[in-house]
């Protein structure tokens, strides 16, 4: 940070992020809360959270990203059946074992049926914890959708203001939009750099740089990302004989860090992905100085947010979008990496498959679980796939 005169290396920055991510609990959020009065922190279940609305109300939106592969599920699996994805159970388990105690509330959204029911189960099991639920509109064509979502955000702002004891003002919201714009803009630039020069920034590096934003305040994240951008851009390296891959399907439950590394080590440059898409969220900046910033945020969700299988925008075909993404990223192949039992991502697959076949883009379908810790099988499957393309 500013006290350091020497530019930091990517390795050092990534190591710092890895440490924060892997540490259980929410120490940065606790420190942030203690630094000033009228502050709170809320756990945000994926995918899309209106982070600005929370932050502007004095509530740090902490991203819930599951239990990873170090957590044992001992209680939550009696509540959710074996055919439910892991992040549902690990999030409940975190609550049941006190790991979310430093957070002052939790927010869920209308992404899938298990997440929706989890909001209820959470409410019942933790009567002291405020639980919010956001219904995102699914009719993207309706002219009343932006107004509806704006009102929904206003309701959320009231909820958030009650958590922190500080009602949001329009100016607060404008400031929050500005800071998150900075974060997202830098992430977009890092993504562009990786697309153009994947040998300068591995995904195993980019991913923690983005993911740490789940845990630290956005100002700090913006600085860290700026440092990373500078370090990556001035890095030296040489392109290797690898295939360029667009990865899709992991927008909610997150694969272990080692799995991301294994995919790369198997011979892939990941040139685009949908990891943590709800944090990157917008294609461009949200307008900063509008008279009704809540409405601007709502309009941007409807018109400028990045796609995922939990957003059903009927104006664009998801399969065409994927093919277009593969082409614009000059990808040799697509890997569809779905969380096991994740119904939305599994539903997307047949549609993708057909379109990719028609477009002549090779693809590989894989499933993962956040709790997996052996990667040999999946790695050799990818290696075989890569070889079949390289030596075709």
């Amino acid at each position: 940070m500013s006290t350091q005169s020497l530019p930091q290396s990517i390795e050092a920055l990534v190591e710092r992020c890895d440490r924060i991510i892997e540490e259980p609990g929410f120490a940065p959020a606790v420190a942030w809360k203690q630094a000033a009065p009228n502050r709170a922190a809320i756990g945000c279940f994926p995918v899309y959270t209106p982070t600005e609305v929370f932050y502007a109300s004095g509530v740090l939106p902490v991203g819930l990203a599951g239990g990873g592969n170090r957590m044992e599920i001992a209680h939550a699996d009696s509540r959710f059946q074996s055919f439910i994805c892991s992040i549902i159970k690990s999030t409940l388990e975190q609550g049941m074992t006190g790991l979310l105690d430093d957070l002052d509330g939790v927010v869920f959204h209308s992404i899938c049926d298990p997440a929706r029911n989890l909001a209820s189960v959470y409410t019942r099991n933790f009567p002291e914890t405020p639980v919010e639920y956001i219904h995102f509109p699914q009719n993207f064509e309706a002219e009343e959708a932006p107004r509806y979502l704006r009102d929904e955000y206003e309701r959320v702002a009231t909820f958030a203001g009650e958590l922190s004891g500080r009602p949001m003002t329009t100016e607060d919201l404008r400031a929050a939009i500005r800071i998150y714009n900075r974060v997202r803009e830098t992430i977009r630039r890092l993504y562009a750099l990786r697309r153009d020069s994947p040998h300068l920034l591995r995904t195993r590096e980019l991913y923690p740089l983005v993911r740490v934003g789940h845990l630290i305040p956005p100002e700090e994240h913006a600085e860290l990302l700026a440092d990373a951008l500078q370090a990556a851009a001035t890095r030296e390296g040489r392109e290797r004989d690898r295939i360029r891959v667009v990865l899709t399907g992991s927008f909610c439950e997150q694969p272990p860090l080692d799995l991301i590394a294994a995919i790369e080590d198997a011979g892939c440059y990941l040139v685009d992905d949908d990891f943590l898409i709800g944090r990157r969220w917008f294609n461009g900046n949200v307008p900063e100085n509008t008279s009704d910033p809540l409405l601007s945020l709502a309009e941007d969700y409807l018109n400028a947010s990045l796609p995922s299988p939990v957003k059903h925008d009927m104006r664009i075909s998801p399969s065409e979008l994927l093919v277009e993404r593969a082409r614009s990223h000059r990808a040799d192949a697509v890997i569809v990496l779905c969380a096991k039992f994740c119904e939305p991502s599994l539903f997307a697959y047949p549609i993708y498959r057909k379109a990719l076949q028609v477009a002549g883009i090779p693809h590989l379908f894989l499933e993962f679980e956040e709790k997996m810790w052996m990667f040999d099988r999946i790695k050799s499957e990818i290696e075989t796939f890569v070889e079949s393309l390289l030596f075709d």
Partner: protein
Amino acid sequence: MTETHYQGKLHHLQKELMSEYYAALTASANGSGVPAAYLLIGGNPVELLRAFDILPVFPEVNALQLAVRKQSLPFIQSAEFMGYSSDNCAYVKADIGMYFGGRQTPFATIPEPSLLLCNYVGCNVYLDWFGHLAEFTGQSAFQLDIPFIRSASGKPSKEDIEYVLRQLHHLIGRCEEITGRKLDEEKLREAVRLSSLTGDLWAKIKHLTKRTPAPYDAYFDSVTMMAPLYCLRGTPQGLEFFETAYAELLAKAEAGIGPLEKERFRYVIEGPPPWPHLRAFRDMFSRWDAVAVASTYSTVGGLWEFGFTHDPDHPLESIARHLLEWNLTNRNFLQRYEQIERYLEEWNANALIIHSVKSCRLFSAGQGDMREYFTKRGVPTLLVESDLEDPRYFSEAQMRNRIDAFFESIAHRPIREGVTA
């Protein structure tokens, strides 16, 4: 063991009316000129379609008909061959398989849709399903977005109602384009009036199982009445069916006749039925003289028994309220706990059976928590797992053993007058 027979007069009427309905679908598929709209069961706004003489097609009803006739597996497998996962809702897979199988079923040829009406009432799979149909048919789907119940009061907000009403106006516009004629308000009022009378009768039928013995099984027999409730609601035939059904079931209640020779256990059941094995499943309960007095599944399309009725004087508002508030699918999971609690108390039941189906996470995700909740409140509760569409997930011997063990264990408890906390 003697086989139990469950056929009655209303079953025959149901068969007759449903085959007329399916004949109309086939005729539409063969070019009768009557447009068809696909829509979903959850809080369905069928009255609006009836007002335009658009034929409602419920892919969920088609899928379950396939399953009941043990015809679903080849369609499921052909969808899986296309890349659908074994973990996806099998209703969707059966429907997509059937769609690509030329829309031929043993009961009808399903017409191509003139309108894909995705009434997004709670179930997120609806969005995927109709999104896929949109891709495959090259049509755009109309997404009727219904905000989920998320307030502590369990009620939709003023904004929610306003939002749905506005969308209903757009939907009317779309129907006008399809049919080439303006909405006839009188016709809409008439469809809503018929629907309201039908809903009132259905509610009365539901309340009949408060009596001992229950005059019919509120799970296995209710499902017979559900197809007419959706496919024919808002028509004179639909009303006629429910008048007949009510008269017949009331007469049984008055005469003290139930579906079983004697009634020993009264249970509430949560979750959809295992359609491919319905008979086998039913017999597992009847051999214990156990009758379902209430079921949550029979409220996916509407929750009339708790006081809802369509209002012909405010047709669109009442359609909006039905979509938002008065059906199981758009209510949150804890509201379902309350619903079950009411059944246990007011319908005087002494056990809860949770049938957890893999396909339908709307129903099943979190049912372990539900079991824990009711068990802690002293309600004997059993959770069994299978599926509503895929015949491969039903393990008959294991299921029977679990159900036997459950009734065995509660047989020694006295039957209580209701269940207290």
